């Protein structure tokens, strides 16, 4: 796999901050950022359920593999030089349930987190 497309939520401050952070990291696999459910996303993936991608982070590989929610986060980590070993660690059978729980919690509360930390206003 040579590239991943990240379908992110452009409405959320936390996601925009994460996007900026990711842009600075050195990568093993190229990351393309496309706002979820946008025209560009629909053009690239005509068969994808785009309403679902609004609910949680979605990553699509260049082979068409769709990773949703916590799996998408792990794939993003996996694409980074410095955090690839963390992706394997967090995806191990012992840690995967905890990873999923924590990531889902952050994801579901992303607007509140953005509001509390001021990230929603910061980049607007």
């Amino acid at each position, binding site marked *: *796999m040579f590239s991943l497309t990240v379908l992110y939520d452009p409405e959320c401050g936390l996601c925009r901050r994460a996007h900026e952070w990711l842009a600075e990291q050195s990568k*093993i696999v190229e990351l393309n950022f496309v706002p979820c459910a946008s025209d560009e996303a629909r*053009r*690239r*993936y*005509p*068969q*994808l359920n785009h309403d679902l991608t609004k609910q949680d982070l979605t990553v*699509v*590989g*260049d*082979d*068409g*593999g*769709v*990773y*949703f929610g916590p*799996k998408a986060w*792990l*794939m993003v980590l*996996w694409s980074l*030089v410095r955090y*690839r*070993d963390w*992706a*394997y660690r*967090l*995806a191990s059978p012992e840690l995967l349930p905890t990873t999923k729980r924590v990531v889902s919690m952050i994801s579901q509360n992303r607007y509140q987190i953005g509001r509390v930390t001021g990230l929603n206003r910061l980049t607007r």
Partner: protein
Amino acid sequence: MTIGISTYLIYLAISVALTIWVARTLHKNGRVFLVDVFHGNDALADSVNHLLVVGFYLINFGYVTLALKLGYAVTSAEQSIEALSVKVGMVLLVLGGMHFFNLFIFSRMRRRSVQHNQPPPIAPDAFTAVRQEA
């Protein structure tokens, strides 16, 4: 030559010989690791190997030099041997520590490079058609 001077000279001879031996071992056997890490790029592997060995020499000779002073007069052969055992023992421990640190660096570099070619940690939830870029 007094027994004190001889003690210092023997200490230096043993320490320098040990350092050179460990550094050469590291240089000879570390190369295979580095060539693998740098995907067969021999020139780069040799360069990094050499730089690591230079650092190894500097740290160890630095320690050997700093630890030379005994702080008391050696008057008998017995005292000389005791002093040597302490000093050379310390040098051996420092060399051992440095050696394992080098091994740790080698293995970490190798792990990173191996990971670069590993598949994703998880399977996708589904597959979708991808429209190729125009």
